[in-house]
């Protein structure tokens, strides 16, 4: 128990230390402390993993009461089971690597200690999210990682554009958070608990389940997941979030935080299984997101933007798997994706580092020669994400496509199309960045260099993982499925029956990937094309380049309308209300003023009033009865 707490609190202690003393102890020291705490957590995660892999017994910790609700109470409780430990492993593992990477990457920044503090805080919240034993503790982590994302996207806070991006990320996440809250409220009132274990038994034991409300809860939770995991319609924050330093993009916006939605849905799989309508929605949203994001990624020229949309697209695939009830497949893809996408981001970070902040691919090229390690790791990851065997992405993506084919051909087609595009844009990225001649300025060229070993080491590790990561769940003999089996109610983990269809599908997927690569090769190597300048883009490409104008539409529909409503309220309604109140005063004043005129001073008039008053009083007293 104490070790579990240490696992949770180590990054938090690192955060406290760095925020209070980080400035005084020097950059490297604060980086080492930040990294060390996460490595400690990672070690503890391994410890718990080994423990649980043997005992198959979940560890549950209750700390103290937190929130008291009439029909239940929420406590600080933690649950270490297969799922949470799996997540812990790659969160802290990749976290450690990225911390390590950051020591070098952020070394020039004056606020490096803060950077590490925030990263540590993020890891802390992520751990809380993962190991919380109930939805509210999950919510702490959920909001906490959102906060860290806000802090880290806006890390260079002097640039208001970055701050805008940070704010946007936080607020869009909060829209999802509201959904999560609503889902919690429905669950709370239905089952009087928010604890996963009790919830599971309550649902399993219930005889008359109200499917309508359960579906509502599942849908609300899905909205929450949409926000955090950047699905349509709440995905636009993620590409903007690339404003943050690249390690942040790798850690938060590719590998860990954005998978929180998938974690939550997997966690509550027993609930989602009861709501097939919601599952359908999830699958459809996931596949559409995958396709839309992939199309946008086709034409982006900012290296990080391409990766960002690629992330959205991959997350869409995961949601597709979730929607089809194949939770373990989604988890599998989460893990492999974490490896190769972190690697890709870190690799792009390495490139950006070498080019001193240049992110536009049109100004890159030919880096293969100078940045060998970066190139190779990048290539491996690109192959992995494109689904080329034997790299890890092939296995996970293939499983998703298989599941989709089993359920719905249209979804399969969309997903396949998205993967084909993935292969194309990834290799477009690769070719534009690393092949041909360097297109940047001469000054940049003179500084080109391979990154230091602190940067390349994580790249190598991640590339290895991206290569062999597929081993944990081979199509016929899946360790992962067996490991996760206790979590799921449905026995969907049965090994696929491998027949001709499956092999054919696999072949189609691989061929699709190769076709994508080939098109990219033809276009950018053979024909030596370059993406057009911003002004020269036209037609559908322009729509894609401008991301379907979704940002503009949202801006117009929500931000502008809210702002003009606000202005209307401020200028019209407020003044009206205010003048109504003043109006009351004015009416009183006016009555007094008019009444004053009655006091004309004319004795004759007074006497009349007197006599009439006398009449009235006498009538009232003696005659009215």
């Amino acid at each position, binding site marked *: 128990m104490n070790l579990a707490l240490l696992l949770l609190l180590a990054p938090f202690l690192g955060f406290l230390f760095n*925020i209070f003393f980080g400035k005084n102890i020097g950059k490297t020291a604060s980086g080492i402390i930040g990294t060390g705490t996460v490595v400690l957590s990672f070690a503890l995660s391994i410890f718990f993993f080994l423990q649980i892999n043997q005992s198959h017994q979940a560890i549950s910790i209750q700390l*103290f*009461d*937190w*929130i*008291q*609700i*009439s029909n239940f109470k929420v406590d*600080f409780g933690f649950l270490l089971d297969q799922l949470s430990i799996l997540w812990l492993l790659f969160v802290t593992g990749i976290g450690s690597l990225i911390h390590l990477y950051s020591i070098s990457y952020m070394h020039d920044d004056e606020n490096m200690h*803060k950077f590490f503090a925030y990263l540590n805080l993020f890891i802390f919240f992520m751990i809380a999210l993962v190991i919380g034993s109930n939805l*509210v503790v999950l*919510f*702490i982590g*959920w*909001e*906490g990682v959102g*906060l860290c994302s*806000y802090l880290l996207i*806006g890390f260079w*806070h*002097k640039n*208001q554009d970055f*701050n*805008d991006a940070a*704010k946007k990320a*936080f*607020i869009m996440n*909060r*829209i999802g*958070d*509201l959904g999560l*809250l*609503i889902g919690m*409220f*429905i669950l*709370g*009132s239905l089952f009087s608990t928010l604890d996963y274990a009790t919830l599971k038994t309550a649902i399993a034991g219930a005889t008359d389940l109200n499917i309508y409300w359960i579906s*509502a809860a599942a849908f609300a939770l899905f909205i929450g997941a949409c926000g955090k995991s950047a699905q349509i319609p709440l995905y636009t924050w993620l590409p903007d979030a690339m404003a943050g330093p690249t390690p942040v993009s790798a850690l938060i916006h590719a590998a860990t935080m954005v998978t929180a939605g998938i974690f939550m849905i997997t966690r509550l799989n027993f609930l989602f299984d009861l709501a097939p309508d919601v599952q359908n929605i999830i699958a459809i949203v996931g596949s559409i997101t995958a396709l839309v994001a992939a199309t946008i990624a086709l034409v982006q020229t900012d290296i990080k933007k391409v990766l960002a949309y690629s992330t959205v697209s991959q997350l869409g695939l995961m949601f597709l798997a979730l929607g089809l009830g194949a939770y373990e497949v989604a988890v599998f893809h989460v893990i492999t994706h974490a490896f190769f996408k972190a690697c890709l981001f870190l690799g792009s970070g390495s490139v950006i580092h070498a080019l001193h902040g240049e992110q536009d691919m049109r100004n890159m090229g030919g880096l293969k020669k100078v940045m060998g390690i970066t190139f190779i790791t990048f290539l491996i990851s690109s192959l992995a994400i494109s689904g080329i065997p034997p790299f890890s992405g092939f296995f996970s993506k293939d499983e998703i496509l298989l599941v989709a084919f089993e359920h719905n051909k249209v979804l399969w087609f969309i997903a396949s199309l998205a993967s084909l595009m993935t292969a194309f844009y990834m290799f477009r990225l690769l070719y534009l960045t690393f092949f041909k001649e360097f297109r940047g300025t001469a000054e940049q060229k003179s500084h080109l260099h391979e990154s230091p070993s602190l940067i390349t080491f994580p790249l190598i590790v991640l590339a290895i993982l991206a290569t062999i990561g597929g081993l944990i769940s081979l199509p016929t003999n899946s360790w992962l499925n067996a490991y996760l089996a206790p979590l799921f109610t449905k026995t969907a983990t049965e090994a696929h029956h491998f027949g001709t269809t499956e092999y054919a599908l696999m072949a189609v997927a691989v061929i699709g990937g190769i076709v994508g690569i080939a098109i990219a090769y033809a276009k950018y190597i053979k024909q030596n094309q370059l993406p057009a300048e911003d002004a020269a883009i036209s037609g559908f490409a322009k729509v894609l380049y401008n991301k379907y104008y979704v940002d503009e539409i949202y801006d117009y529909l929500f931000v502008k309308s*809210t*702002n003009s*409503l*606000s*202005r209307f*309220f*401020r200028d019209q*309604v*407020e003044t009206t*209300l*205010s003048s*109504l*109140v*003043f109006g009351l*005063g004015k009416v009183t004043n006016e009555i007094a003023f008019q009444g004053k005129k009655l006091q004309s001073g004319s004795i004759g008039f007074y006497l009349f009033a007197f006599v009439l008053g006398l009449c009235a009083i006498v009538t009232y007293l003696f005659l009215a009865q």
Partner: protein
Amino acid sequence: MNVSLLLIILLVGAFATYLAGDKLASKVALFFGLSALGCSIELLNQFNAGENISYLSQWINQPNIAFALKADGLSIAMLLLTTALTPIIIFSSFGNDYKNAKAFYSLILFMAFAMAGTFLASDGLLYYIFWELSLIPIYFIALLWGNGDTEERKKAVVKFFIYTLAGSLFMLIAFVYLYQQAGSFLLEDLYKLDLSATEQLWIFLAFFLAYAIKIPIIPFHSWQAKVYQKAPAAGTMLLSGIMLKMGLYSVIRWQLPISPLAAKEYMNIFIGLGIAGVIYGSIVALRQKDLKKLLAYSSLAHVGLIAAGTYTLTIDGLRGAVLQMIAHGFVVVGLFFIAEIIFRRYETRTISEMGGIRSQSPKFASMFLLLVLASVGLPTTFNFVGEFTVLYSLSQINLWFALLGGTTIILGAYYMLKMYQHVMLGETNSKVFADVTAKEAITLVLIIGVIFFFGMYPKPITDLITPSLENILTHINRVN
């Protein structure tokens, strides 16, 4: 210990502060504020030991008015809020150089006295007297030490005074009517009354008018923003931190149990008003140019949610409301203090004239950010506990209420972060921003500490208020 000792300390403190002279006034006031805090902690101990904390003596025979004070868990929670915030507010004013300081600090203590009395009184007329008494010091504080154009300030403050006074008169009428029915102003006697539905409706409305103006619930809020803007920092803190809570407390203590039928019958309307306040306040806050006005509207939004919680008439709603009241009290005091700190350096409250402070004073930025986060109800802050409970109670009434009320977490984040961005972030400001002084830092750290401690461990407060809220709830549910 006698419960009236608390009131005596505060009252004596007010006079002593005045007599101490301008130089010593602040210290004397702080001393008495702290002793009042000690006194209420002692009351808390006694209460936890199971003692009955009340004081009753006949005051006027004809009509039958008693000097009746009674403290249950709810009252003690509110007393703690009052007596904890009063020293903080006094301490936060140390950095300002007010002229005629003795009167200023004396009025603050006097106000604390009146508010503590309001929370303690269990006799209708006594309660009413304290209720109105609290209006007098804040009127002078806002009028004499406020900022901005004198004429405009006078207008705003007089409007506030007359508006709230007018609302309270309806409450007085309700009390007179209740007295005619019950023959006594004592709370227990009023609880026992068996009024018809129509009578209850009228009484409910009369109370509502008084409270809706004080809290304020839209559309009765038009005094708020201007007064918050014009009043001095301490005045704004008193208003938003404690005085608002008087209204909410009174809803729970007086309005709901005395007229439960009406409260049940028209529940949806009043919850709707509260939630309308949430959305309206948040949206208006989006485009405020003045920092204090923005905070005022944010306060309107939060208070709307609290009010909606109280009108759900569920234990969750009441408990969440009380928790949120306390949390909001601390946060809003902290935020107004932030505004004051900036004003001390920049001599402005206009948001567009700020910006880039974070790079000048990172410490200040962190503390500000923590308060902003608390205000938007991030989990592990006290506000989250209250907000969560209130929203849950709303969802029990109608899911749409929770959904609409929940927009506060989106819109709240929007306007607060937008404000934070324009006040703190961006290119380094050309004007010099001296780092926070030790006194300022202590104040802020105290507030932040309270917010996070109770955000993690709200159990003491929950346990304190729950029995008395359940008791009130049985009174509410006595008729069906």
